[in-house]
């Protein structure tokens, strides 16, 4: 036995290691559990380093580029070019500051105007693997982030939180093949499921061939997946082809069009209306819908008929019958309800008296 183990030691160790990992995989897949300890360790080691590198990079790249530009200046124009370089440096710096301020302002304005409660986060790393569609953000459980929360930008949805660590979170992008979200088209209100494909575009699946979807039409979140609040932009239709049963709808995600550096994590989502077709949201601010039509119709107007319900109209009719017969309700027997009083001409609204016991309308 010892001779056997000595001779086949390496292959035995290999098989044992593979077997252990297979067992671990099977345990995770079968029980839908995670080896959280290993993940927490790895992420806690990697993300702070990535954060430091990102901070150093963002503060030095602009200066370094300008420095190398100045190194190549012609000697005789050195002084002028130095001045020009300084101005360029300043300009570049101010421009980048302005761009950043614009982005932050847009994000803050969106955050303030959006009914959902959100928290801003910065993307600090991407996931491992060649085909990975994951990013890490610099907010974690300490910022109130939980698994399954939606991640958005003012331009549209970005993904959902997959794992949460103390100071970072893992976000699955909408382009990942395992991602899915319920969506609805803006123009024809067609429901479907947005799915990632592993590259830049997504598809909207489960839309019957008979349904109408046009290129250029926007898809918004439908709120049916209970991750994304209803009414957030998801993507714009690039191409539509009939399939066997369902249409093949290629969608370009609007949330990823301009890259992702800063994002918002939706802590408490509030559903919104889908904007009407042709009413494109303004970039950066845009997803708040107009006030719902039902609200404005339900508001009382001075000319509206106060007898809004059937019960009110019946009560008014009986009061008219009683008045025509000189009857006082609550005294003696009932009046003869078979005799209809002559219909009264409609009085102008200004002369209408409020029902007894009600307060006069406020001016």
């Amino acid at each position: 036995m010892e001779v056997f183990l000595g001779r086949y030691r390496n292959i035995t160790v290999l098989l044992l290691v593979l077997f252990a990992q297979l067992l671990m995989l099977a345990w995770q897949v079968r029980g839908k559990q995670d080896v959280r300890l290993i993940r927490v360790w790895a992420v806690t080691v990697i993300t702070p380093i990535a954060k430091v590198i990102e901070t150093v990079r963002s503060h030095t790249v602009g200066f370094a580029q300008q420095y190398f530009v100045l190194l190549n200046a012609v000697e005789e124009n050195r002084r002028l070019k130095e001045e020009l370089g300084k101005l360029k440096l300043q300009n570049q710096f101010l421009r980048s500051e302005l761009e950043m301020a614009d982005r932050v302002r847009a994000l803050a304005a969106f955050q303030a105007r959006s009914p959902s409660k959100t928290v801003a986060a910065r993307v600090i790393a991407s996931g491992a693997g060649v085909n990975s569609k994951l990013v890490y953000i610099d907010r974690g459980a300490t910022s109130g982030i939980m698994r399954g929360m939606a991640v958005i930008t003012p331009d549209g949805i970005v993904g959902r939180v997959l794992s949460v660590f103390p100071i970072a979170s893992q976000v699955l992008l909408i382009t990942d093949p395992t991602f899915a979200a319920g969506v609805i088209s803006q123009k024809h209100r067609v429901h479907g499921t947005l799915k990632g494909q592993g590259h830049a575009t997504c598809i909207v699946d489960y839309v019957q061939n008979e349904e109408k979807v046009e290129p250029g039409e926007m898809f918004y979140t439908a709120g049916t997946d209970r991750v994304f609040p209803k009414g957030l932009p998801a993507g714009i239709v690039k191409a539509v082809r009939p399939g066997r049963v369902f249409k093949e709808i290629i969608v370009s995600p609007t949330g990823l069009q301009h890259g992702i550096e800063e994002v918002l994590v939706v802590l408490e989502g509030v559903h919104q209306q889908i904007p009407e077709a042709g009413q494109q949201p303004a970039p950066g601010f845009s997803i708040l819908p107009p006030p719902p039509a039902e609200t404005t119709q339900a508001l009382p107007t001075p000319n509206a008929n106060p007898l809004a319900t059937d019960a009110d109209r019946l009560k008014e009719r009986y009061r008219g019958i009683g008045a025509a017969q000189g009857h006082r309700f609550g005294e003696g027997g009932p009046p003869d309800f078979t005799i209809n009083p002559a219909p009264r001409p409609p009085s102008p609204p200004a002369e209408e008296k409020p029902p007894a016991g009600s307060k006069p309308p406020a001016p």
Partner: protein
Amino acid sequence: MTDFSDELLIQRPRKDRAARYQPLLITLVCLAAILFQVYVPLFFQPLSFLELPLLATVYFALMKRNQLAGLTIGLLVGLVQDSLSHHPIGLFGIVKTLVGYFAASVSLRLDVDNPLVRGIVAFFFFLFHQAFFWLLSSALLEQRAALEIPRLSILALLNAAVALPLFALLDKMKGAA
């Protein structure tokens, strides 16, 4: 057998040529490779094709010329990659364990200081890594991603091209260590 092939093929397993690396150096290089993979593609998307953790695993397994060391390096790099992915932990671990073991086995038979051999080994192990990962994720997790052989072949060529200067750079670190 030609003289050229004799040069490439070592007749008997040679463990005496195993390079010595400090564990700290191996750890730092592997960590840097993983950091590169998770960070650089954020700003330069075309570099996302680079599988530096794999190349680091292959290099150290080749240089250590020890199957146990190779599989240990592959196992650890793979598990860290698994931790940073959304797959269950073990997929990268299994694949890279095998890569480390086989790369160390190859180094016992081939002259892995030869750039041609290094290029071919890097090309082969990239294809092996991607194909085996696809096989595992399809069989164990029922993920139905397409295996695009032409694209993978091009990526393998690119990774092999990067492997040559990278391995030469790591050779210099060996001297420094």
